[in-house]
């Protein structure tokens, strides 16, 4: 993608959908696993039983389905925009997950965690702005 060719409104919307699907899928997995309870690696059969309980929950399957849709959206986006544009744009997902964790799952998101998320978003944006280079 060169600078003169701006992404279309459709591409922006698809990017927003991809970020929302990623955050939503992870949130569903988290919500499902909270119902299963903490998985302790005491014995292998206990871990297998815990995962059995996890995969009996609808949230886990909805989460997996949502993440598959995110993967398909990402593939379509990769055909339209550069990865160096996709990566920083999707960094907002870190903040969205925290926001949804707070609003939907009732998690406590402290000021330190928000500062950390802002730093991570800024860092990923910087990494994404680095021009790709090969040594060959």
């Amino acid at each position: 993608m060169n600078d003169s060719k701006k992404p279309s409104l459709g591409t922006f919307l698809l990017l927003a959908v991809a970020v929302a699907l990623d955050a939503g899928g992870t949130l569903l997995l988290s919500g499902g696993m909270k119902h299963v309870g903490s998985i302790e690696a005491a014995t292998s059969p206990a871990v297998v039983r815990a995962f059995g309980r996890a995969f009996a929950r609808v949230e886990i399957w909805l989460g997996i389905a949502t993440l598959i849709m995110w993967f398909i959206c990402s593939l379509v986006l990769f055909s339209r925009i550069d990865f160096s544009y996709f990566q920083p744009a999707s960094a907002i997902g870190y903040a969205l997950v925290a926001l949804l964790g707070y609003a939907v799952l009732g998690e406590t998101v402290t000021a330190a965690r928000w500062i950390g998320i802002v730093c991570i978003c800024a860092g990923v944006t910087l990494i994404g702005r680095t021009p790709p280079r090969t040594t060959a």
Partner: protein
Amino acid sequence: MRTVVCLSIVILAGTGGDLLSAHAMKQSARLEVTGGSAVAMLLQGGFRLSAMWAGLVLQALAFFTLLALLSWADVSFVVPATALNYVVGAAGSVLFFREQVDRTRWAGVLLVCLGVAFIFASER
């Protein structure tokens, strides 16, 4: 402690899986596979390589470890903390592939490290 161990597995196995899958897909582009569409041929070639299967095993390990991690840790902690994969990716590209990483990228990596340090501080 278990959180750090599981997070390390998620990051290392996830990044390793991505690298192996990418390596396999690049290799498959050089294989001669007949019939089907271009994408199907590429995937068919990729799945003939052991690197692709090794990559899938690592990605499955990362996924199940992430599920276990989410059973006790907050999603608002786990997901931002997995941003450490950018650090692993940059370090791996220098150590294993002898790639050049410029200052802007290192500045980004440092910011991610700082951010993850704040995230860990918020857990205590």
